[in-house]
C-alpha cells in the first residue's frame, strides 16, 4: 500500500538506459561541447575584463576581511577578556568597526559590478541573437515555429542570466575559501586532512553520475518549454479561429498534454539536480563523523589534541561548504549551458549568402530578365514550384503576372527579391545575375506591397515611414493621400500619431493594405513589386488609388500580381502562369488576338 502511495508521487522516467549509455559514450564529445559553449560565453563576459578584475579584487578583499573579523574577535576574547587586559580593547573594537564596514562595502560592490557584467553579457547575447535572426534566410523561418524561437530569446536567456549573476562570484570565493582552509588544515594535521580529503573522489564520481543525467534533462526541459511556447504563440495568434470553431477545449487538451510532458521532465530535472546538494550534505556529515570518530581514537593514543579535533570539525564544515557551493553552481551552470547551447545553435546557422556584399552602391536601371529559371521550396519535393521560366521586362515597363492561385506568381516575386535563390537558371537585372549583386543594393531600390499587410506596433506615421526612414512628415502625408488612406487616418483618435496595437481590431484589413501602399509610395524605388496589393480594398477606393499607382509605376519597372484584370490594362507585358509554367506572355493586344488562355480568362471575367 505504501508502495503504491509512494508511486503516486513518482513520474515515469524521461531518460532511458540507452540515453544514459549513449551519453556515457559521447562523454568526450559532450565535454568538449560544454567547453566550447562555456568558452563562447566567457568570450562575451571577458569583454568587460576591467570590471571583472575589480570584481575579483573585491571578492579577495571581502574574503580576507571576513576571515580577519572572527580572528580579531578571537584575539579579543583570548588576549583581553581572558587575561583581564582592557587597555587597547577600544582600539581593537574600533578597528573591527572599520573591518566590518569594509566587508559590507566590498560585498555590495562586488555584487553591484557583477550584476552589471552579467546583465551586459546577456544583453550582448540577446541583441547578438536578434541581429543574427535578421541575417538568416527566409527558409530558416519557414521551418520553425515563432513561439519556439521566442522561447530561446527569453526563457533560455533568463536561465543564462540568473546563472551568470551568482556563479562567477560564488565559484571564485569558493575556490579562495577552499584553498585557504586546506592550507590551515594541513598545518594542523596532515593525517586528518587526508581523511577529510577522502570524500573528494566520492564527490567527484557522484557528481558525474548525476550530471550525466541532469545535463540531458535540462536540455530536454528547455526543449519542452520551447515546444509549449510554440503552441501557446500559435493558439493565441489564431484565437479568432479557435473561437469561431469552438475548439477551446481541444486546445486546452493539447496544451495540457504538452504541459504534462514539461512537468514530467521538470520533475526529473528537479529530482536529479536536487540530489547534488544532498549528496554533498551526506559527505559533509560523514566526514564530520570520521573526523570526530577517527580523531577521537587518535586522541586516545595521544596523536592529536582535543583542541585540534574541535577546530578540525569546524574546518571540515568550512571545507565542504565551498565544495557544496561549487557542486550547486555546477548544476546551475549545466542548466545555463542547456540554454546557451540552444542560443548558440541559432548563432551557428548559416547566414543568407551574399556574394556581392562589398559591392559599391550603384543605381539599378530596372531591366529584368528570367532565363530558364526553375525553383522548388523543398529540395526533396518532386514537382518544382516553377519551372523553366523565361521572360524579359525592359526598364520602365510594367509586367502583370496572371494565373490561378498556386501557379507560382508570388514565387517569382520572392525570387526577384532574393528571398530565395533559384536552383536552376539565371535571373538578371541590368544584365547582371542577381546573385552577384548585394542584397542591400538590390532591395534598397525595390519596394514591395506584400500579400499580407503587416503593421508594426508603432504610430501610423512610423508605419508609413518604414518604407523610407528619412521621409519627412509632409512626404508621409502626401503618400497617405495618394494611397487614399488620409481620410481614414484623420478619423483615428490621434490621426497620424495614433499608436497601432499589434492585434488591434480597429483597423480593417483593407485599411492595412492602404497603409502598405503608402509605405511603398514613400520608398521611391526603381523596381516595384505589388503582390495582390489591393485584394482587400473595395473597387471604388481602388479606382481612386489606381491613378496614384499608375503614376508610381511610370518610369519604373513594375511587376504586378492581380486577380482582378483591371490592373492588367496598363501593363506592357502580360505573363500568364499555370502550374508553375509560363504558358503565355506578350503584349495585351497580341494575346487577345491570339485568342489563347489569356483571352479566355478575359472572356470569363468580363461582367
Amino acid at each position, binding site marked *: 500500500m505504501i508502495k503504491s502511495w509512494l508511486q503516486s508521487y513518482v513520474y515515469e522516467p524521461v531518460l532511458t538506459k540507452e540515453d544514459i549509455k549513449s551519453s556515457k559514450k559521447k562523454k568526450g564529445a559532450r565535454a568538449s561541447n560544454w567547453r566550447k559553449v562555456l568558452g563562447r560565453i566567457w568570450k562575451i563576459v571577458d569583454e568587460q575584463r576591467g570590471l571583472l578584475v575589480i570584481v575579483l579584487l573585491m571578492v579577495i578583499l571581502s574574503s580576507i576581511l571576513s576571515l580577519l573579523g572572527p580572528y580579531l574577535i578571537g584575539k579579543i*576574547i583570548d588576549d583581553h577578556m581572558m587575561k583581564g587586559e582592557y587597555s587597547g580593547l577600544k582600539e581593537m573594537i574600533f578597528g573591527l568597526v572599520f573591518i566590518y564596514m569594509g566587508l559590507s562595502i566590498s560585498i555590495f560592490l562586488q555584487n553591484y559590478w557583477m550584476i552589471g557584467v552579467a546583465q551586459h553579457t546577456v544583453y550582448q547575447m540577446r541583441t547578438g541573437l536578434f541581429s543574427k535572426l535578421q541575417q538568416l534566410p527566409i527558409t530558416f523561418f519557414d521551418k520553425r515555429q515563432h513561439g519556439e524561437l521566442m522561447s530561446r530569446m527569453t526563457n533560455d536567456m533568463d536561465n543564462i542570466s540568473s546563472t551568470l549573476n551568482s556563479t562567477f562570484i560564488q565559484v571564485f570565493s569558493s575556490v579562495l575559501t577552499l584553498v585557504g582552509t586546506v592550507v590551515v588544515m594541513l598545518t594542523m594535521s596532515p593525517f586528518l586532512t587526508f581523511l577529510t580529503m577522502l570524500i573528494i573522489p566520492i564527490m567527484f564520481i557522484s557528481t558525474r553520475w548525476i550530471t550525466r543525467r541532469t545535463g540531458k534533462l535540462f536540455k530536454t526541459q528547455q526543449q519542452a518549454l520551447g515546444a509549449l511556447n510554440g503552441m501557446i*504563440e500559435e493558439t493565441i495568434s489564431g484565437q479568432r479561429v479557435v473561437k469561431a470553431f469552438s475548439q477551446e477545449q481541444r486546445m486546452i487538451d493539447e496544451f495540457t498534454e504538452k504541459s504534462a510532458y514539461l512537468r514530467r521532465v521538470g520533475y526529473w530535472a528537479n529530482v536529479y539536480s536536487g540530489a547534488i546538494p544532498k549528496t554533498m550534505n551526506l559527505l559533509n556529515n560523514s566526514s564530520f563523523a570520521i573526523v570526530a570518530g577517527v580523531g577521537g581514537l587518535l586522541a586516545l593514543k595521544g596523536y592529536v589534541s582535543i583542541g585540534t579535533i574541535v577546530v578540525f570539525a569546524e574546518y571540515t564544515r568550512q571545507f565542504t561548504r565551498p565544495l557544496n557551493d561549487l557542486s550547486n553552481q555546477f548544476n546551475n551552470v549545466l542548466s545555463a549551458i542547456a540554454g546557451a547551447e540552444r542560443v548558440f545553435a541559432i548563432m551557428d546557422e548559416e547566414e543568407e549568402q551574399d556574394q556581392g556584399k562589398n559591392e559599391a552602391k550603384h543605381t539599378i536601371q530596372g531591366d529584368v530578365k528570367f532565363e530558364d529559371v526553375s525553383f522548388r521550396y523543398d529540395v526533396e519535393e518532386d514537382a518544382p514550384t516553377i519551372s523553366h521560366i523565361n521572360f524579359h521586362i525592359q526598364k520602365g515597363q510594367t509586367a502583370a503576372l496572371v494565373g490561378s492561385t498556386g501557379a507560382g506568381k508570388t514565387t517569382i516575386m520572392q525570387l526577384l527579391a532574393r528571398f530565395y535563390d533559384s536552383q536552376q537558371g539565371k535571373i538578371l537585372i541590368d544584365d547582371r545575375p542577381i546573385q552577384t549583386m548585394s542584397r542591400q543594393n538590390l532591395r534598397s531600390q525595390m519596394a514591395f506591397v506584400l500579400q499580407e499587410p*503587416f503593421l508594426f506596433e508603432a504610430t501610423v506615421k512610423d508605419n508609413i515611414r518604414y518604407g523610407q526612414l528619412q521621409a519627412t512628415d509632409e512626404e508621409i502625408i502626401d503618400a497617405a493621400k495618394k494611397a487614399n488612406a488620409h481620410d481614414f487616418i484623420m478619423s483615428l483618435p490621434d490621426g497620424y500619431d495614433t499608436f497601432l496595437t499589434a492585434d488591434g481590431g480597429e483597423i480593417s484589413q483593407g485599411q492595412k493594405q492602404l497603409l502598405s501602399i503608402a509605405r511603398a509610395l514613400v520608398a521611391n524605388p526603381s523596381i516595384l513589386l505589388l503582390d495582390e496589393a489591393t485584394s482587400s480594398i473595395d473597387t471604388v477606393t481602388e479606382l481612386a488609388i489606381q491613378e496614384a499607382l499608375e503614376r508610381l509605376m511610370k518610369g519604373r519597372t513594375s511587376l504586378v500580381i492581380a486577380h482582378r484584370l483591371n490592373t492588367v490594362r496598363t501593363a506592357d507585358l502580360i505573363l500568364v502562369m499555370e502550374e508553375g509554367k509560363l504558358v503565355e506572355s506578350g503584349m495585351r493586344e497580341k494575346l487577345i488576338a491570339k485568342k489563347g488562355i489569356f483571352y479566355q480568362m478575359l472572356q470569363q471575367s468580363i461582367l
Partner: protein
Amino acid sequence: MKTIFQYIKTYKVSASIAFMLMLVELTVELTQPLLIRKIIDDGIVEKDSHTIWLWGSIMMLLALLAFLAGISNSFFAGYAAQNFAYDLRNALFQKIQSFTMTTFLRFPSASLITRLTNDVSQVQQVFFMSLRIMLRAPLVVLGSLIMAFYVDASLAIYLGIGLPFLAIFMLMMVKKSIVQFSAVQRRVDRVNRMIQENLQAMRLVKAYLRGVYEASRFEKVANALKKDTSSALRLMEYIQPILLIVMNLAMLVILWFGAGQIQKEQTQIGDIAAIVNYTMRITGSFSMFAFIITLFSRAKASADRMEEILLIEDGVENVILHPQIEVPSKKGELVFENVSFQYPRTDRYVLKNISFTCKQGEKVAIMGATGSGKSTLLQLITNFYEVEEGRILVDGLDLKEWNVEKLRQIIGYVPQRALLFTGTIFDNITWGKTDATLEEVMTATKQAQIHDSVMHFPNSYQTRVGQKGVNLSGGQKQRLSIARAILRKPEFLLFDDSTSALDIKTESALWDALADERATMLVVTQKIQTAKDADQIILLENGVLSACGTHDELMTSSTLYQRIAQSQADLGEKSDD
C-alpha cells in the same frame, strides 16, 4: 497571492512531507556539534574507545538518515512544485481560452505568452526552493536568537534591538523590489513582443532592408530590460551588506559591554563566546536572506501578473455557465434588429442601426468601402463582440440566449486572414471536426476547389503546413480555410472577404459547388461578380446600411452600388478594349 496559494493547497500533503524531511535534515545538522561534544567529553576525556565507536557510528547513521531524507525530499518537493506549476499553467490557459475577444485583446499576445511560461517558472522555482532550503535560514536565525537569549538575555538584548529595524528594512525592500520586478516582467513582455513582431514580419523587414534598423530598435528594448533588471537586482544587493553591518556592529557592542560586565564579574567569558558564536551563525545565513527576498519579490511580481488574468470574472464567455434553455425555433435564419456597435474603449460607432433579415439557404453579399464595418458585422454574428444596442436573432433566438459553444457549432467562419496551424493539411482541415473521415475531407476540399492542389503536394494530405510547413500561396491558404469551415456542415457560412486571393474561375467554381449546401451564406466581398447572384446585397456606408436588395434592384436604386459597379465595369471595359 491569495489565488495563487489556492493552487499550492492541492499539494499540501506532498509539500508537508517535503517540509518534514527538510526538518529531519536540519535537525541532524544541528545535533552534530552536540554529538562531537559527547565524543570529546565521554570518549576522549574518559579514555573510552567504546563510546567513541558508538557515537561515531551514530553520527554516520544520522548522516545517512539525513541523506535519505534529503533525497526523498527532492521527490516530494519536485512533485509538489511541478504539479503546482502544471495546474497554474493549465488554469491560466483555460482562463485565456474562455475570454471574450474584447478581454482577450486587452492583453498583447506576447504578454500572455510570458505569463504562461516565464511567470509560471518564477513562482514554481520559489515554491521548490522554499520546500528545500529557504526555511533553513530563518530557522537558523530564530534558533540562534533563542539560544543567545537563553545564554545571557542582558547581552542578547543588543542583538534584539537591531532586529525590528532590520525587519522593517527588509519589508520595505520587498515592497520596493516587487514594483521593480513587475517592471522587469513588463520589459520581458516588450522584448517578447518585438521578437514576435519581427518573426511575423520577416519578409517585410527583409524587403525594406530594415534588419539593421530593427536590430537597433531591439537594442533599445533589450537595453531597457538590462537596465531594469540590473537596477532591480542591485536593489536587492543592499540587503546583505546592511544586515551584516547592523549585526556585526551589534556584536561589537556586545563585546564592549560584555567586557565591562566581565570586569564587574557579572558575566562568564564562555557566555560571551557563545553569544558571539550564535551571532556569527546568524550573519552567516544572511546571504541566504538576500537570495530569498529576491526570489520572493520576483515571484510576487509574477504571481500578481498571473492573478490579473485568473481573477477576471466578467469578460469571460458563457460557455459552461450558460446552459441554453430555449430551443431555436427556425433553422438558418438570421435577423439584425437596429444593431449599433462600437468597439470597447472607443467612442466611434462602427455600425449604426443595422436591420436586415436573411432566410435559410440564402446567399447574402455584404459590400461597402474599406473600413465601412463589413468584418465587424460578421464578427458580431459569431459573438466575438457583444452587441449592446439592438439585437441579433440566430434561428429565431436572441444571441444573448445562445450558449456560445452551441452557436459557434452551427457557424462556419472563414476569416479574412487565412490562418493555418502547425500540422498536416489533413489536421488543418479536420481542425474544427477532428473525427472527420478522409472522404468527408475530400468532399470538402473538392467543394473548396483545393483537392487537386493538395494531391500535387509531396505527401498530399499528409504534407506539413503552418509555421513549420511548406509554402502555400495566399489562395491555397484561403481555400484550405474554406474547406475547414465547410467540413463542419454548418447552418451558416460566413466568408470575410475570404476569396480575395482566388481568381475568378476558381471562385465561381467554388460558389457553384457551395450552391448545393443548404447553408445560409454571408459573404463579404469587393466583387460585383460575386454579389451578382446573391439573393440579397447589403451595402454598408460608414457603418450605416445604405441599401439592401438584389443586384438588379440596387443597380437602379443605389448610387453607391452603381458607383461600385461602374468602377468594375470601367475596368472591365477598359480591359476589353
